[in-house]
């Protein structure tokens, strides 16, 4: 199972209580990993309102995850 470096921002960071964690998971995609984490940490945002970036680039929800990837979950943005 891959070990991932997971980063959280904004509402996810607050709900997780930290901005980063390393974890080993059976989840093969960002969508699957988000559902796993959402169940574990009680994230209020449903997966269809969260995007993901892997290694600092936006990816699709069904993109593959590889050992050592840095994954960031991106809540709905609100710049400006």
């Amino acid at each position: 199972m891959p070990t991932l470096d997971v980063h959280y921002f904004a509402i996810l960071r607050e709900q997780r209580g930290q901005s980063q964690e390393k974890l080993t998971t059976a989840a093969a995609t960002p969508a699957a990993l988000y559902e796993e984490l959402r169940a574990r940490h009680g994230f209020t945002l449903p997966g269809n309102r969260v995007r993901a970036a892997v290694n600092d680039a936006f990816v699709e929800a069904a993109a593959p995850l590889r050992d050592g990837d840095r994954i960031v979950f991106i809540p709905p943005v609100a710049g400006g």
Partner: protein
Amino acid sequence: MDTFRLSPQGIDPAALQRTLADLRAGACVTFEGWVRNRNEGQPVQSLEYEAYAVLAEAEGARILAEARARFALLGAAAVHRVGHLALGELAVWVGVTAEHRGDAFDACRYIIDEAKARLPIWKKEHYVDGATAWINCATRGDHGGAGAMPPA
């Protein structure tokens, strides 16, 4: 050249605009986003911006490049604040120059519209009554966009 930056310090619009000076330019359009004292009826006391810096800067540079490809621009620059901002502070500055004003207006608007929609930056409002809220992160309704993750 075109630049997009995040800034933890106050933005100096006059200095930014000077970087766009160009004797070929006939038009300079700027957009400033200011922290306002009310949002959807609620009195606001201050704002916090948090950014995923690496990706925000890459995406900001992409937006400026897209604007340059779509419009006849001479220059473009944008800066977005991060951190805690007081009422009236400058949160985002966009400036573009062009020979003609139509391109300058259209490009400036394109940049701020895309920046608001795409940059991984989050805004937390602090209200006068002490409450806070991450904007767009309420969980009523369902506004998933392209790339959002469907329920597993």
